[in-house]
């Protein structure tokens, strides 16, 4: 399954599940929950960290964290 880590800048996706981790509650808190639409806004050099747009705000996360978020790519 693809994750946010696999997305290119500008691609949109729907969050399916978030893999368990020590910071699962923190990820949920920031809005990374099932059904939310995300869009990669920009990336730092080496593609890490990544800034995504969700619910009208920008959230930055490291690739490691992004790879925990399983998504379904939306065709644009």
């Amino acid at each position, binding site marked *: 399954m693809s994750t946010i880590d696999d997305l290119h800048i500008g691609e949109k996706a729907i969050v399916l599940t978030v893999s*368990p981790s*020590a*910071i*699962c*509650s*923190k*990820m*949920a*808190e*920031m*809005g990374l*929950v*099932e*059904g*939310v639409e995300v869009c990669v*806004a*920009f990336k*730092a*050099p*080496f593609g*890490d*960290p990544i*800034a995504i*747009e969700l*619910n*009208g*705000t*920008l*959230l*930055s*996360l*490291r690739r*490691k*964290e992004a790879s925990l978020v399983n998504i379904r790519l939306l065709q644009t």
Partner: protein
Amino acid sequence: MKVALFGNPNTGKSSLFNHLTGLKQHVGNFPGVTVEKKIGLLKFGDINHSIIDFPGVYSIYPSSEDEQVVYDVINNPEHKDYPDVACVVLDSSNLSRNLLLLSQLYDLKIPLVAVLNMWDLVDKRNILVDVEKLGIVFPGVEFIQTNARVGFGKERLLSALFNSTSATVYCPTKDNYIPAVLDDKVAQEEDIKFRYTWINERISQIVRSKPNVDDRTKKLDRLLTHPIIGYFIFLSILFLVFQFIFSFAVVPMDFIDLKFSQFSNWVGMNMPAGLLTDLVSQGIIPGIGGVVVFIPQIALLFFFLAILEETGYLSRVVFIMDRLMRPFGLNGKSVVPLMSSVACAIPGVMATRTIADWKERLITILVSPLMSCSARIPVFTLLISLSIPQKQVAGIFNLQGLVLMALYLLGIVSALLVSIILNRLITRKSAGFLLLELPSYKNPRWTNVLLNVWEKVRIFSWDAGKVILVISVLLWALASFGPGDNMEKAASNCQSTQDFARLSQQDQEQLIASKKLENSYIGIMGKGLEPVIKPLGYDWKIGISLITSFAAREVFVGSLATIYAVHDESADNLRLIDRMKREKKLDGTPVYSLASGSSLMVFYVFAMQCMATLAVVKRETNSWKWPLIQILFMGIMAYSAALLTFLTLS
């Protein structure tokens, strides 16, 4: 009544707090922890109420020490800070995430007033929020539209807070809600997911427009987070800020320096001679002066940092720096503490609280004092003009200026190298993460900026001030007393020499002072230290100054002035430099040569000569273990690097 202010970060919560209290606020501590508690006075009618500004959180579940305060208070109605009514600040342009915290607090049956803040953005960005519908979803909660940045809505908010009739209808998201325990992350996740589902079922009726990031933020981010231009802009900002600080802080600093030494002289002459006068004029006044002199620099640096933070730029700095800092065991969030440490390590160490991971935070704390702080500047300036020749390099560069820059770079590079080593040595596994909101860009609000500066200056003056003051009094005692009557004997010995009578009165007094110091306890300590520091090229006089600069590094300069019996009120220490240049060893070679001068400078880059920072590190790490480790490794680095420098150059 006790009012609590809760809300997500970046919702304008602090602006609202400042606005409500009209600057009638003070800072305390939450019981048992070092997290700062901002308490304000809130006057409604004739009654005074207190309002506490809690740290910004996205939910009640904490991921740092600061955030845990919220969890501790709301879960314990017996807590001394448990509120009678809570004011929840919401960002009107981003309700779905903001409602998460509201729903948790609502379920805990804390009487609530919700503030729809930044209401102006709602109109500007064509966001359609149905306030009436919000009241239906959360019955019993009053929703007030405000814009804290321009101060509209204050009266309505106050009357809602204090005239609220107890809610008749109450419709919780979860009945008999009991928050998950701190360690059960899975249960916490479940709670949050449940609430988001609940919110998402209702949000489309509340917010009738598609949320999106505003255009200005998008445009600015294209530049400021650009893989090349972004770093270039960051470096330029850094350069400008420090250029500005160094060129402008000098004026008030020289002024303060001059005024304090004049005042201490005045006291010494006009108060009845005796121990008490000496204590005041030589211990207490210079001690306070040593704190006050740094305020201009610290205030300026935090003024710029506060502006960068207010605009939202600082979180972009975290974003572009995170990947670069990670190999060193640091975090993007370490950049701000390290930058602050260039002014003073104390606010720098305290700024590490935003780093959630303990290991990343600890490393940042441990290396912060390696950044060259403002107290090192007087030491560096003195030693550079003493041992580095004034000449041009490659036509345009001034050698002395280059050396100063090299010393700063040495501090930065060693901070990074030490981080790598500490990262290997501290075996605890890092669970570092960077889930950071990048807020939309805003114009800075000047009240917030100035309050922020005031807070940092207050922390510095108090935290550093009390330690520096105590140590300078202690050092004064060590320098004023000696075993038996050695000091008096030395003084009368030098008075009986033939040359003495030919000196001017001022020179006579200074010579006596210098002889007395040599035979005081501190003089004895300096001489005892000599065998240890001789390999570095130092004599016992420098030894005394090394000891005294434990109060604060810049005391080094004042101590040398006393030792060499130079009375110098000029800001550039010309007489002192002249005197030190003439200082010879027994074999006739100068004491302050290129080798020994450079070795001293290198020593000051590394040595942990700041008791105030140690005290703050102890407080922030809750044990003496880390400050002791810090003083040890920095001491070893200082000694070996200084030795290496001396051997290479001589």
